[in-house]
């Protein structure tokens, strides 16, 4: 029976072209408009944030390494010197920083310019730079010395930030803080007598790159997700409207008179909401994939999020239907479509990244079903797996179950005549 309710709902959607356009074409148009107007174009490879960083070395690192090795020969046996010499490339801090800065992943969002110390004053006045990284005199020498002799000296890079670029400043700061931690780790290992050659360079490199793994999301990708999760909310309203329409024209009474349990009908609305939300999401994401090349790294993870979000929408559809029946009015659906859905879209971050606001705002946003769905999709798009979105998935499922329980409590016991 539930299948026939779903099939009937599908036919009703299919025959109502105006509604189909609103549910499918509208989000696609909005994605195009918002992506173009608010983002950095539709180049999927481009990052919404590109930061310029100036890099200034006071003294060439190679000179410091040679000086260090010369001094080392006077203090340790020649065998140890030979071993350090063979690993010196992996130990040289500036060489490692440059290797990371020039990697393809970092180049996507960091533009590094190597400058002469004499040019610093010019760069300070140039507001296009997010930060100036200065390698102080003797930095590499001190790092190597602290690694080998467990010195307490803590060599530090000098970084000057452009406070007017807060987002970029935060990213650059986080990037170099992590690098500094790698240096400290190296020193710590040295302190504990661990063979430096045993340090897996790739592992260290991987840690440094961990911030790079949070791939930037293009504007078109962001608004594809934002508009999809928002417009799927309207589908819940549409299903709720149809359920109320069935009550209004006494079709619901016919169903009750046919000895069909109200729970079967109720389940039919839930299943219809879930399935058609799923189909709507697939169509919009499919379009974005074909036209803008927006694709999720793992299709299975994407489907898991889509099912969870669609289930939440199904729950919302049942709740709206039950409230309409209980209040004997479609006011609830109209209020949801005209006010609540828009409010949820704003709170959930469909129009602007909520990550840029306060943590309270972010928490509130993630407590909306669309916000939780959006965060989950964005996290997947940045390269994380299911483990990284377990909270969002859990929230969506709990939200769906709660709406179903509340709807069940509201649903009328008999028919709805008179």
């Amino acid at each position, binding site marked *: 029976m539930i299948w026939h309710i779903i099939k009937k709902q599908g036919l009703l959607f299919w025959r109502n072209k105006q509604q189909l356009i609103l549910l499918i074409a509208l989000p696609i148009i909005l994605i195009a408009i918002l992506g173009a107007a608010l983002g950095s174009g539709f180049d999927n490879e481009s990052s919404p944030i590109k930061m310029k960083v100036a890099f200034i070395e006071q003294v060439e690192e190679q000179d410091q390494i040679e000086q260090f090795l010369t001094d080392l020969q006077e203090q340790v046996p020649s065998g140890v010197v030979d071993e350090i010499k063979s690993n010196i490339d992996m130990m040289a801090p500036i060489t490692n920083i440059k290797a990371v800065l020039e990697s393809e992943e970092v180049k996507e969002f960091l533009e590094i310019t190597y400058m002469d110390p004499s040019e610093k004053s010019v760069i300070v006045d140039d507001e296009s730079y997010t930060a100036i990284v200065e390698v102080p005199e003797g930095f590499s020498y001190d790092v190597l010395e602290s690694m080998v002799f467990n010195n307490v000296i803590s060599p530090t890079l000098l970084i000057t930030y452009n406070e007017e670029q807060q987002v970029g400043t935060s990213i650059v700061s986080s990037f170099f803080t992590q690098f500094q931690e790698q240096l400290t780790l190296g020193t710590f290992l040295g302190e504990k007598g661990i063979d430096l050659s045993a340090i897996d360079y790739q592992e260290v490199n991987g840690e440094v790159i961990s911030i790079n793994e949070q791939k930037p999301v293009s504007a078109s990708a962001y608004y594809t997700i934002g508009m999809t999760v928002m417009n799927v909310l309207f589908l819940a309203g549409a299903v709720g409207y149809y359920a109320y329409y069935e009550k209004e024209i006494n079709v619901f009474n*016919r169903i009750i008179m046919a000895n069909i349990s109200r729970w079967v009908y109720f389940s039919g609305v839930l299943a219809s909401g879930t399935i058609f939300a799923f189909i709507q999401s697939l169509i919009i994401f499919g379009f974005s994939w074909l036209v803008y090349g927006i694709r999720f790294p793992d299709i299975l993870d994407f489907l898991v999020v889509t099912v969870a979000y669609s289930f939440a929408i199904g729950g919302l559809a049942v709740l709206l239907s039950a409230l309409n029946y209980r209040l004997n009015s479609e006011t609830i659906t109209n209020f949801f479509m005209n006010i609540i859905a828009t409010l949820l879209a704003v709170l959930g971050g469909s129009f602007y990244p909520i990550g840029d606001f306060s943590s309270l705002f972010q928490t509130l946003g993630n407590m909306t079903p669309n916000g939780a769905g959006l965060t989950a999709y964005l996290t997947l798009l940045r390269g994380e797996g299911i483990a990284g979105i377990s909270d969002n998935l859990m929230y969506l499922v709990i939200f769906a179950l709660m709406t179903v329980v509340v709807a069940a409590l509201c649903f009328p016991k008999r028919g709805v005549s008179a």
Partner: protein
Amino acid sequence: MIELVDLTKKFKQMYAVKNLNMFIERGEIVGLLGPNGAGKSTAISMLSSLVEPTSGDVRFENNSILKKPAPFRKVVGMVPQNIALYTDLTAEENLLFFGRIYRLHGKELERKVDEVLEQIGLTDRRKDVVKKFSGGMQRRLNIGVAMLHDPEVLIMDEPTVGIDPQSRNYILETVKRLNEDRNMTVLYTSHYMEEVEFLCDRIYIMDKGNLIASGTKDEIKQILSSEKTISITMERLNDEFVEVLKQNPQVNRVTTGEKEVTILVPRDANVFSEIIRLAESTGIELNSVDNKTPTLEDVFLHLTGRALRD
């Protein structure tokens, strides 16, 4: 077969139905008559187990359908006053969907859909979406859906509202045929006296939630045995003429139409000369003065002082 016992429905302080007692025997067509707002729809909603009564009971084969509605629902077909159809689906899709909810499957379902489409005269339009149908065709399909599972009892709530005379006749003939050919029991509610007179064996008349008369057509018309109805038609209605009629001691009731006045007078009263005199004194040019056979409409007028469609 079906019994309504002291059935009452109260909405806040207002009685929609008050102490309604009715019975319906197998194979008869029973009319439930009354103006809009009389309580007919509420009564049949309670009878159909869709609305819980404030007090009283509904029994089917001596079992309360309020406690166990399933056996009754299985044998009843409901034709609601509204068009309870999906107007964006075709006639066939509607019948297939509602057939499925009545647990019909496969070939049996297809056969029933064909049979019902034939009965309601829509076989040629089966693939058309319902919203393209005329009001009469939609009404016929509305009835067809209720007949899909071969019900023993058909409850029809004003099934001919707002349709053309041709479709109306078609529906009335269909109901008559179903009763004669299949011994189908029908409860027919309407505020059209002529429909009830044409179809029904017995009649219940409701007004303002109360049952005001019941019996066979002849029994009900006997209520008017002491009175007769006179219809007066004229070129243009005159308020002064109506007023003097109302004040005449021989006239019991007066109702007015566009160019017609109907009066109830004692059966042995000779009022023709008096009517002509009153017309002359008020400047009215009469077209006709007829002594009418009493109708159910006249009975309702006699009982309530109002016309059914007031």
